[in-house]
């Protein structure tokens, strides 16, 4: 489904990586590894068509993602270093608004349930600015509970989470793969994801180009 070939990334005068290619099919996960600054985030942003690829091609269901445009974005769920939650809104509001903007309906019961799964019961109505670092991340991740889009691109989802939360998120990813979804994941905390086939890709330490 997702094919990447010969991708290259240049930042400033530094070539972060070149010739990166992989292929991901339904139910598979790519576990992207590499030292700090090796270009993982840059690669993920290219996958999301947020930044252009200098060289190489990214294809989704056989078509270049640049051409697909909105059709590609409709199947894509991205979670970056930032949480993309509003500090003024409560977790519940955050979750429902982000669903609405992604053109999905999410009723209150389902949303509450998702928050509870991430261990945020009792905090649904507290504005997010009062939450702790890890709780904010949990709110961002609660989106994944009802997310049915095919491709998940997750940049260090486990950051700031405690171990029980990490397990729960790993469980969500596993369930997604079992449903036939695809996932691309970076993390410095190796955590086993139960189901699905995991491919690994290691970005070589930089400074070699």
């Amino acid at each position, binding site marked *: 489904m997702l094919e990447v070939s010969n991708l290259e990334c240049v930042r400033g005068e530094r070539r972060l990586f070149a010739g990166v290619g992989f292929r991901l099919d339904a139910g598979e996960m790519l576990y992207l590894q590499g030292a700090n600054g090796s270009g993982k985030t840059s690669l993920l942003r290219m996958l999301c068509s*947020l930044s252009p690829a200098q060289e190489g091609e990214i294809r989704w269901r056989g078509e270049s993602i640049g051409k697909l445009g909105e059709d590609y974005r409709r199947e894509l769920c991205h979670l*970056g270093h930032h949480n993309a939650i509003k500090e003024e809104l409560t977790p519940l*509001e955050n979750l429902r608004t982000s669903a609405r903007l992604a053109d999905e309906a999410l009723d209150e019961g389902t949303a509450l349930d998702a928050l509870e799964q991430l261990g945020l019961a009792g905090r649904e109505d507290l504005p997010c600015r009062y939450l702790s670092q890890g709780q904010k991340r949990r709110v961002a991740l609660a989106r994944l509970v009802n997310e049915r889009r095919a491709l998940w691109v997750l940049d260090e989802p486990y950051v700031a989470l405690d171990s029980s939360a990490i397990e729960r998120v790993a469980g969500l990813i596993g369930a997604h793969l079992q449903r036939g979804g695809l996932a691309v994941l970076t993390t410095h905390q190796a955590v086993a994801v139960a189901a699905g086939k995991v491919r690994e890709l290691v970005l070589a330490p930089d400074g070699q180009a």
Partner: protein
Amino acid sequence: MLKLVRAIISRDLRLAMRRRADIVSALFFFIIVVSLFPLGVGPEPELLRKLAPGVLWVAALLATMLSLPRLFADDHRDGTLEQLALAPQPLGLIVLGKVLAHWLVSGLPLALLAPVLGLQFDLSTDALWVLTCSLLIGTPALSGIGAIGAALTLGVRGGGVLLSLLVLPLYIPVLIFGAGAVDATVTGLGAQAHLSLLGALTLAGVFFAPWPTAAALRIALE
């Protein structure tokens, strides 16, 4: 499509309600600037009446401009903008929603408050009417044009003031026609021509501006 625009507007309005201080303060800024000028200029009533249209319009313009940097900056900082850019719908529509919400929160209250302030300047009822109308018609253009500037300076260090630099010159025509309409009424000429030009500017601003804005946002996200 319309659903998305509505969703954005309702989200932005809700956020604005949570930060109500913002709206109230923009209004107070407007009030203070309007009252400040007579203070710097001196108390002659004749002079003041002459100043009124210009001062009110410039104050409205500055109040709008001050709220511009945060139009996208908050969303940018916390990663929401990225999510919006990845939404399946065209980004231009989302921007349109944000522009409309911005007007509802900044331009509309100003226009409604203006006649009260105009009273202090001893303006005639006619002139007050035209003032309100011109602000109602003209301020959406300020939000639209401002959005382009806000997107272009997004993430650029020192963006706030650079934004004013980019946007103020583009505001000049709005200011000219807006203040001109009131002036024309004060001096007994019709305001019709000015108001329709203002309307044209607004239509162009609101419906054309979202597209370059969306392009600028995508560049800022790169």
